[in-house]
């Protein structure tokens, strides 16, 4: 194909300018003729060795319509990206393959694809983040609805009681009734205050504004005090509530008020859990481990919980099922969890339906002033 025909085109010059070769192959796909030297294609070799994109295409090459495979590149980068196409010579019926170097288009095109895809992926990620934010917003909304409900119940008691007592007719009430209304209102007020305190703690712990006032505390003493308070809780009548001391109570470097809050929350949950039973029992103890760490343990023989219910109960914004939901909008465990973490500790709960519940609040050895 090297003779130059006047008025025609010299295919070799065209092929070289384009960085391309034309390859004639026989029906068994052996290379018979190569026009142009842009690629190293050897005569008499299997064309699939030179162009691996042709593996699997044997039948199509022989009998099918012309092929065209744009932008093919070998992984090992030994050849530039090429476009491969096939054609039949109308006169001789010979099968020709054309291999064209597309490096330049390829790089521009690849940049376009890269930009497009990276943008689309970033957009999808943004959308997912937005959806997650919306979902979080929804849980917050349902949390607010939950809290509002908890606020309304005691408020109704207070407003109702106050309106009865403030009517002139209230002089007709006998003293027992007056005391009844007043103590209901007092109880509801205490409940409200507790709820508001919990909410403040929770939101402070979320924003990182809850600070600890740490000092040396006596764990036995705290346990005793909180068990005493627990006995006065409304549901505590008939419940066996006991504290078990350890001999040498370690002194712990912690925020005493917060430790009390942890214990009271756990004790109050436990009492509510066993209130329905005639043999309800709540045991509070301190356990010291060989490595110097220690646990506060509150154990009850109530109905226990399934794993799912427990997960919900620990979640401040989750809405526990009615059966496990307790007064105070179910904030107790969430707060205990955060307070324990603030102390570098952890709240661990083991429970199963029908098996009661054990809450462990774990403190590191570094919090204790003695060596074991």
């Amino acid at each position, binding site marked *: 194909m090297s003779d130059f025909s006047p008025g025609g085109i010299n295919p070799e010059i065209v092929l070289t300018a384009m960085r391309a070769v034309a390859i004639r192959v026989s029906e068994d796909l052996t290379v018979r003729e190569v026009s142009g030297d842009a690629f190293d294609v050897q005569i008499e070799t299997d064309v699939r060795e030179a162009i691996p994109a042709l593996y*699997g295409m*044997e*039948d*199509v090459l022989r009998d099918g319509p012309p*092929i065209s*495979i*744009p*932008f093919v590149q070998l992984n090992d980068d030994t050849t530039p*990206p090429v476009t491969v196409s096939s054609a039949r010579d109308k006169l001789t019926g010979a099968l020709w393959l054309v291999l064209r170097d597309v490096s330049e288009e*390829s790089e521009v095109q690849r940049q376009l694809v890269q930009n497009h895809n990276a943008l689309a992926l970033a957009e999808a990620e943004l959308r997912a983040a937005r959806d997650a934010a919306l979902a979080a917003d929804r849980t917050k909304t349902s949390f607010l609805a939950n809290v509002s409900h908890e606020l309304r119940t005691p408020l109704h008691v207070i407003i109702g009681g106050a309106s009865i007592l403030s009517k002139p007719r209230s002089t007709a009430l006998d003293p027992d009734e007056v005391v009844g209304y007043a103590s209901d209102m007092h109880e509801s007020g205490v409940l409200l205050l507790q709820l508001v305190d919990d909410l403040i703690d929770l939101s402070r712990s979320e924003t990182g504004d809850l600070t600890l006032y740490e000092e040396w505390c006596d764990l036995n003493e705290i346990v005793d005090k909180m068990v005493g308070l627990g006995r006065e809780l409304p549901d505590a009548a008939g419940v066996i509530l006991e504290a078990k001391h350890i001999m040498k109570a370690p002194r712990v470097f912690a925020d005493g008020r917060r430790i009390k809050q942890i214990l009271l929350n756990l004790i109050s949950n436990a009492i509510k859990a066993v209130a329905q039973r005639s043999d309800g029992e709540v045991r509070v103890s301190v356990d010291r481990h060989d490595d110097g760490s220690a646990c506060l343990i509150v154990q009850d023989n109530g109905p226990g919980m399934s794993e799912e219910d427990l997960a919900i109960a620990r979640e401040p914004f989750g809405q526990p099922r009615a059966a496990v939901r307790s007064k105070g909008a179910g904030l107790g465990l969430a707060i205990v969890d955060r307070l324990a973490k603030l102390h570098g500790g952890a709240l661990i709960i083991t429970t199963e339906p029908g098996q009661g519940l054990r809450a462990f609040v774990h403190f590191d050895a570094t919090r204790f002033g003695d060596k074991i």
Partner: protein
Amino acid sequence: MMKTYKIVVLGDFGVGKTSLIRRYVLDEFSDQYRATMGVHLYKHTDRIATEGGQSEIRLVVWDIEGAPLPSGQTQRYVVGASAALVVGDLTRADPYSAMWSAADMFEEQLPGRPMAFALNKRDLSDAPSPDVVKRMERRYDGPVFETSAMNGEGVLHAFHSLGKSILARNL
């Protein structure tokens, strides 16, 4: 000469097609995303456990530019393929639509050729819903694998299952 089989890897962009192939062929992984433009070919010879013991199989794996919907160009790339691996990304809101489209296209172009499905980035995501997995397996008569190009989970299984189908059907 021993036959060399063509396997195409299809799916949306960014789902991990290149990563799965590179894990399979080169046993490597990169967390950088470099979009594939056109197609990259990986030659690979593997040994596969078959009925009669071990068999050698020679493959050219086609790493095809990803798209949510297969284009005319994608159709030209699958010509002559013996099998397809269809890849989806478990971390997406909808990992499956693009997989169905790719699988439908392949089935239409090359009816009856074996397909396998890779639900990829399993290291970043929970397990897929068993319902979808069952539906996929039934509709295309191909196995579904949970994979991670990052830690290698399921990758060999997915490619070997295709190799086995190819050898069994002598495609």
